[in-house]
């Protein structure tokens, strides 16, 4: 029964991720005074890409690309599966064990590494530049991300009264949530939430930090040599990453506890929409793209120092 719920939830979430992408394009269009595409446009794009057929570049290592894309899809499903979702009585996880927060961080790093592998396997100057930029960005945003997760887990263990060896488990976070109500009420948790929100655009490669896939300079970077179904998987992976990250922020920090399952489900969909607008759409509408060294420096100096400060405050 749980597995059936989980599969249904995955299907709902993946369709919702495409709709969120469509809402994103619609909102940006309305901000620019345009009518914009219909909100189901990204589903149309995905279906269209499945129809396309052509020859892959002879220098592209096709088998490496295929394996990398499958690994990426598995990592995306894994990232969603360790997060709690709305069940008939409260929230529950499909994959729950001590250390599932590490699995979440690992799945996100794996999805970024999939981009890197696809880029280097493309063997075109554009894809290789995109892959090397992705590596630079990965190093700069992964450090604050891991530090924030450590601070978050330790604070949750303190709040919920769990032991220190379970600081990387979602269940201790849920336990802390049941005691505090909404987790952002706690000052340390609020700090962690704000840092994770700033990290958002780089985690989901949204515009000021979509340096690895700059369309106008290096023609979508790592996916420049892909087409047809492979590009469709890449397209889906990007949406999966956006929804996994915004659902992570929603389910950990903002979701209220003790609701009926349908209210929880609707609020989850609404919450992911609001959070993805905050980390993807608004930065895209109001700013241009950074250069790679600006992006790397921004994350190491801003969220990097802030996460160190947070860590000191937690252990003090």
């Amino acid at each position, binding site marked *: 029964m749980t597995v059936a719920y989980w599969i249904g939830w995955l299907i709902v979430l993946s369709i919702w991720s495409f709709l969120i992408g469509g809402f994103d394009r619609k909102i940006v269009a309305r901000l620019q005074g*345009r009518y*914009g595409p219909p909100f189901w446009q990204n589903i149309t794009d995905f279906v269209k890409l499945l129809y*396309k057929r*052509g020859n892959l570049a002879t220098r592209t290592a096709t088998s490496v690309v295929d394996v990398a894309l499958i690994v990426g899809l598995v990592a995306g499903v894994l990232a969603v599966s360790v997060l709690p979702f709305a069940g008939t009585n409260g929230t529950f996880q499909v994959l729950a064990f001590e250390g599932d927060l590490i699995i979440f961080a690992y799945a996100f790093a794996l999805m970024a590494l999939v981009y890197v592998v696809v880029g280097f396997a493309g063997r075109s100057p554009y894809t290789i530049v995109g892959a090397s930029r992705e590596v630079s960005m990965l190093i700069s945003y992964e450090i604050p991300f891991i530090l924030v997760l450590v601070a978050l887990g330790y604070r949750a263990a303190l709040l919920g009264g769990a032991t220190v060896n379970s600081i990387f488990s979602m269940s201790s976070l849920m336990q802390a949530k049941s005691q505090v109500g909404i987790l952002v009420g706690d000052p340390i948790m609020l700090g962690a939430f704000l840092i994770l929100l700033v990290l958002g655009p780089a985690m989901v490669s949204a515009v000021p930090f979509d340096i690895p896939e700059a369309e106008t300079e290096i*023609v979508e970077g790592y996916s*420049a040599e892909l087409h047809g179904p492979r590009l469709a998987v890449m397209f889906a992976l990007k949406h999966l990453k956006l929804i996994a990250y915004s659902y992570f922020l929603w389910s950990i920090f903002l979701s209220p506890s003790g609701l009926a399952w349908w209210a929880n489900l609707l609020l989850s969909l609404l919450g992911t929409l609001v959070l993805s607008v905050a980390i993807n759409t608004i930065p895209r509408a109001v700013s241009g793209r950074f250069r790679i060294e600006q992006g790397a420096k921004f994350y190491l100096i801003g969220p990097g120092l802030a996460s160190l400060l947070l860590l000191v405050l937690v252990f003090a």
Partner: protein
Amino acid sequence: MTVLKPEKSLWIYHLNTGSCNGCDIEILAALTPKYDAERFGVKLVGSPRHADIVVATGPVTAVAKESVLRVLEQVPDPKAIVVTGVCGITGGVFRGGYSLAGPLDTLVPVDVYVLGCPPKPEGIMVGIIKAAEVLELKRRGMYTKEVVRVSEKGEVLDAVR
């Protein structure tokens, strides 16, 4: 499922084969917020491998010929080619010049002509929409290789067959 049919998503690739830049400026104007091509699902892509429709400008110069053929080979099927401006259709004022390798239709099959020097953005938009109809016919296997002409102001001079 008419809302999800593939022709509602048109990713276009802009190919300059040696144009004077007049048509290129008009293509960019057709993609600006004023004309809002995105409402038809149009998106400008940088890589020919992502494209559905190639919007080509200019007479094909001898230097550009090899690159143009390689780029068109990289576009996955089904694809449509829209030629914008008289230079691409007949050679225009450059016709018979020593440096030309022909208008584009002597090298590859072309689907839509947009007349004008340069055509207005309205004409280019109508050309792209007609190319979408051509794509649908190609997907269904009903395409008969008749070229559609669109005037510079956007009137359709031939029916899509």
